[in-house]
């Protein structure tokens, strides 16, 4: 189906199911229960899961396949956001022109940065992209303020032209009249599920983005990108010029980032310069590594994981801890609150850092590897493949530690 192998079709359908059922899956606890704090099924966070999922999928096409580590992808995110908000300001609140412009401008921008940066590889490439991203950030922050409104961020004002804005058009981002902000809430038992237009808009685009990336992974082009990661010199010797392939991968992932940035502004009509800061570029690297670089699903999981911590853990405060442990004797309660205090609220990044370390040390393949190991555990399969590799003579012997 859809040009996918049988296995991939099932995988793809599984992803579609997960995305569509997200509003239900992310609300495991009934409203009003103590654990409702951990529910994540509210529109803003679900939108972020989908959007940063797209960002990470795109980043993975570059990093996961070619091994080129870009530290400047946030620049494309920002360019996408600014494009969309400018379309709001000039035309009207329909998100389509903005998203199209976001993909085009970020693509051109990626072409320019990629053309220059890809003259180097390895750490030099990373540094070049980082430099470009910081340049873009500083330009947006204080130099190009007429275009970006500086630190305050670009917003839509009542006196903007908005030439296509009709009398009864919605005054918030919409897709041909479907207003992103609107949701339907359904109460089933103690559970409350929020089905938000904006989320489903992002989710459908994310599924398309995922499908495209799946096709790229399975295509000859994807194989070529993997070859670059494996051994670029050998590729040169066989007479292939790797640069057009890396540049194409760079531009594609830049366009994914631009689309993600555009969607951020499509959900919330504001574009801020700090979206382009190097920390944002670093975040997508963390997402990809945390989830599993080079895997299809990993980056999406990583994105969800980080956004979950940023939004849910940072909101747990001492008051809530006291509430949880209130059944325990006073001394024990105080002690537990004292123990947990550094890891919640403003300590969310500490918790995330610890988990990141644990994942990198014990699951070098990211969360995906963790999932696979768990799966193997349940199905009784051993960790290593039991069948010996075909044609063992033609495989290199394991190299001794000290050569």
């Amino acid at each position, binding site marked *: 189906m859809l040009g996918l192998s049988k*296995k991939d079709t*099932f995988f793809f359908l599984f992803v579609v199911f997960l995305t*569509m059922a997200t509003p239900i899956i992310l609300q495991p606890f009934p409203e009003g229960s103590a654990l409702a704090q951990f529910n994540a099924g509210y529109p*803003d966070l679900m939108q972020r899961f989908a959007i940063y999922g797209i960002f990470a999928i795109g980043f993975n096409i570059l990093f996961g396949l070619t091994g080129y580590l870009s530290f400047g992808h946030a620049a494309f995110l920002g360019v996408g956001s600014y494009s969309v908000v400018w379309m709001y300001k000039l035309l009207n609140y329909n998100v389509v022109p903005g998203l199209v412009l976001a993909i085009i401008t970020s693509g051109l921008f990626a072409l320019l940065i990629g053309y220059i940066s890809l003259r180097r590889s390895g750490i030099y490439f990373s540094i070049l992209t980082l430099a470009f991203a910081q340049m873009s950030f500083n330009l947006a922050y204080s130099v190009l303020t007429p275009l970006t409104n500086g*630190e305050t961020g670009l917003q839509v*004002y009542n006196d903007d032209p908005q030439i296509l804005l009709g009398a009864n058009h919605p005054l918030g981002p919409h897709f041909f009249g479907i207003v992103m902000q609107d949701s339907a809430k359904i109460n089933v038992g103690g559970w409350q599920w929020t089905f938000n237009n904006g989320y489903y808009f992002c989710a459908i685009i994310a599924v398309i983005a995922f499908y495209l990336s799946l096709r790229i992974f399975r295509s000859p082009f994807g194989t070529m990108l993997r070859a670059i990661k494996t051994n670029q010199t050998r590729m040169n010797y066989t007479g292939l010029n790797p640069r057009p392939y890396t540049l194409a991968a760079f531009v594609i992932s830049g366009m994914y980032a631009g689309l993600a940035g555009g969607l951020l502004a499509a959900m919330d009509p*504001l574009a*801020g310069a700090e979206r382009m800061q190097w920390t944002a570029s670093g975040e997508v690297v963390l997402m990809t590594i945390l989830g599993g670089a080079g895997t299809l699903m990993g980056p999406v999981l990583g994105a969800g994981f980080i956004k979950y911590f940023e939004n849910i853990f940072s909101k747990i405060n001492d008051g809530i801890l006291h509430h949880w442990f209130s059944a325990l004797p006073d001394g024990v309660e105080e002690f537990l609150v004292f123990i947990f205090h550094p890891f919640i609220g403003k300590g969310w990044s500490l918790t995330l850092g610890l988990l990141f370390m644990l994942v990198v040390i014990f699951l070098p393949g990211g969360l995906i590897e963790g999932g696979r190991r768990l799966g193997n555990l349940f*199905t009784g399969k051993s960790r290593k493949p039991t069948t010996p590799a075909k044609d063992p003579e033609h495989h290199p012997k394991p190299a001794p530690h000290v050569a």
Partner: protein
Amino acid sequence: MSKKFILNRRSVLKYGSAGAVTALATPYFFTRGALAEGENYLNAPKGDTVTFGFNVPQTGPYADEGADELDAYKLAVDHLNGEGDGGCLSTFSSKVLKGNGVLGKKVAYVTGDTQTKSDAARASAKSMIEKDGAVMITGGSSSGVAVAVQGLCQEAGVIFMAALTHSNDTTGKDKKANGFRHFFNAYMSGAALAPVLEKAYGKDRRAYHLTADYTWGWTQQASIQKFTEEIGWETVNNVLTPLAATDFSSYIAPVLNSGADVLVLNHYGGNMVNSLTQAVQFGLRDKMVNGKQFEIIVPLYSELMAKGAGDNIKGVYGSMNWNWTLPDEGTKVFVKSFGEKYGRPPSNAAQTAYAQTLLYADAAERAGTFNPCGIVGALEGFDFDGLGNGPTHYRAADHQCFKDVLVVKGKEEPSSQYDTLEVVEVTPRAQVEYAPDNEMFAGGDLGKCNPGA
């Protein structure tokens, strides 16, 4: 890659497609938004509690200010719910708050981390509105963040009570009907400082500005320049410094050769601590230029900055919204209950946070509803007293509070680590007032109050 799925692909396919179909086919005839029956506004409180959202920077450069604000918010909630000593409820001129919650509902709160970034701040505010059902968001520490969150609250349909934000834009070109600011602004700083500077340093001065390169820095620089030029000062130069800068020596060296005899530091937080310290180390304050003693001015002071800069602030002029050493009853009561709970005097950021929470609760009580439009009606043109700033007026035209402004000076002989600033003059409200269409505030539009439904 997909090995784990293949094992149960039949069930995955079966349940997966069934689930997808159900989710897609879910009809949309259910209630739109979180509307309670009868109450036609967003997040109308249902049970016996009402939720406020405290959105402050807990990480990043303004984390100290954020922590102080959060403490003040918690104190305000205690007082509203009748815990603690009641604080300013006894001195507040409006007597409708009784310490039994607001409109008979106990006040609950959620907290979030803005990270001093507009994006993160909006994400956190959104989760408060969408997940926790907050009817009011309050917080701040950076004008950019305050403006961004204020815009969000306007779109979503909840009230935003701005805390620490000093840029003219918050109630100028970025003003919103659902947003209110109790804190003073850059224009007021300029208007209050200029006469004091004239008295202390004379009419014939040449000023050199170092300005943090973002919205707040620009509006403050423009305000100070306007008012000092009105008293006859000359502006020699204005140099913009990047917000992330920590070393200002390359900016300070040219000041010596510019012929200027006053340095104005339009910096805040860590920036100000560094630039002031380096200016003093360069010996600027010991110089004689044009036959006059060289002087440094820091237009916006905070207690935390004063503490960070240590001895270097001695004798340096600046302005403040409020100071814990003021003698009025409201201040005394607030400082006492804050001190008893946290063991230190509150900063002026904490005071504005506390006052804004009480003002919101009082407006809800007087309006008889949490409906944002009711709140807007109750706060517009509201006159009050007893919260520490003297008689104060919430102007309807731009939702800015008008009250006395303090001109302060770094104390020569501080008696404790908190006693770093002395109040030189309390500039009366009339002197800092301006027309809503003043050129520094023009271009904005309040719009209509949005109840979110």
